[in-house]
């Protein structure tokens, strides 16, 4: 059954058909939420809420890109989750410290599978951690565009559909997000790739 048939069946209340769409898109939806929230538990909550909202609101889907429509719901769910987190600042701090521990462990597991030199691996790990940290520090509007375009690989047009903004806004926010990330990484200068630093010295 193709996507359009599944959507039609889901509109008639077929939960199995909708769950096939969930299976198709859950990884992308969760990863968008995860990069947006920087916290697996909050990302999972936002993703689940988004799929529930999508099932209930699928009757309002009027065609076009189902992926864009679904990810727009995910982004909105992430904003809602961020608002909830702001109302619980104490627990958010706990979550952030937990995230740091989890990040170390998760990255450590991938580290053991690599076959590069230990120094390079450490450098890669530190750079990735710095990127994630800087990404998390971005304002939500900038972060959404950076994640959609630079992490998820969407073009401007689809990113504009997902955040329900004009393409010009996407371009502007993306440039600012990249600029802030560059500045953030520059503040941690040693975290830039040695290759890049070498090039920098030669300039």
């Amino acid at each position, binding site marked *: 059954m193709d996507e359009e048939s599944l959507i039609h069946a889901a509109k008639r209340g077929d939960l199995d058909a909708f*769950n096939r769409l969930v299976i198709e898109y859950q990884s992308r939806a969760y990863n968008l939420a995860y990069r947006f929230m920087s916290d697996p538990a909050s990302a*999972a909550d936002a993703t689940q809420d988004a799929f529930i909202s999508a099932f209930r609101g699928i009757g309002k889907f009027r065609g076009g890109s189902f992926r864009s429509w679904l990810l727009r719901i995910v982004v909105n769910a992430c904003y809602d989750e961020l608002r909830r987190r702001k109302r619980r600042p104490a627990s958010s701090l706990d979550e952030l410290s937990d995230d740091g521990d989890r990040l170390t462990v998760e990255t450590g597991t991938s580290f053991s599978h690599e076959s590069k030199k230990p120094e390079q691996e450490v450098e890669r790990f530190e750079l*990735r951690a710095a990127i994630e940290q800087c990404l998390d520090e971005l304002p939500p509007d900038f972060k959404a565009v*950076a994640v959609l375009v630079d992490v998820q690989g969407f073009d401007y047009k689809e990113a504009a559909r997902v955040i329900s903004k004009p393409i010009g806004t996407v371009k*502007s926010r993306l*440039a600012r997000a990249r600029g802030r990330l560059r500045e953030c990484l520059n503040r941690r200068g040693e975290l*830039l790739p040695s290759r890049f630093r070498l090039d920098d010295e030669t300039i």
Partner: protein
Amino acid sequence: MKEINHLPARDLELLSAYLDGELSERALARLLSRLEHEPGLKRALDEMKAVVQQLGSLPEAPLPRSFTLTPETAGIRSRSRAYPVFQFATALAAVVFVALVGLDTFTGQLSMASRAAVMSDAAEEALVAAPQAEPELGVSETFAQTDDQRDGADVLAEEEISGILAPPAIGAQGGPEEALRAATSPSPQPMAEKAVGGETVAGEGAVEQPAEPSTDEHAETPPTESMNAVAETQESDAEPPGDVDLAYAQETAERWSPAPVPILRVLEISFGALVVILGGLTLWIRYKRT
């Protein structure tokens, strides 16, 4: 490196658009020209390129669980909304049920009191009438014999008499025949017809000659009542006098049963069942919600 950190927003947008291939030919040519002469801008471009590459190389996060929906998760909020509705409906049904039970008990007591009063009257009358049963039968037979000789053309007069006597004479003095008449008085017309069909009483003749039976047996009873009572006694002469009070009590009980009671019972049962069903549903919804 510090001068790179303070790149103007316009230059940032140019570099960003350049990295994504979104610049027009004219804008691209102008930027390339600038990059050749501005090492700081070139370095900023390289750094931004590295940032984009790093973002693109971030590993995909593994799914913590499947996000497929179950019927419960898909409908969990509607149940949450349904819970207070069902809670209120259960409470409302319970209140109505209690009110119905109360009303039924109240009307039941009234009914019992009425029955008890009527039955005690009937028993009293039966006790008083029992010794007189035998002589009355004799009187009836006498009347029958005299009436047999009479013409049966007095049907209209008979009906008129029976119609006059239609209202129940509860508490009136008399024998079991009066009690019977009282018990059957809600349907006076059939009784009158029975009397006529039996041709046991000739109304006109009886009215014309009331003195003979009434003076003998029922001195204080009016003549017309006496005639009717005698006719009815004859009709029921097959029954022993002792059963009269039982039949009377049964018929009186039926007559005095208030009409709303069966409806109340039905409503009671319906609302009782409703309370149980709604209560069960409410508890189920609550259980599912938690």
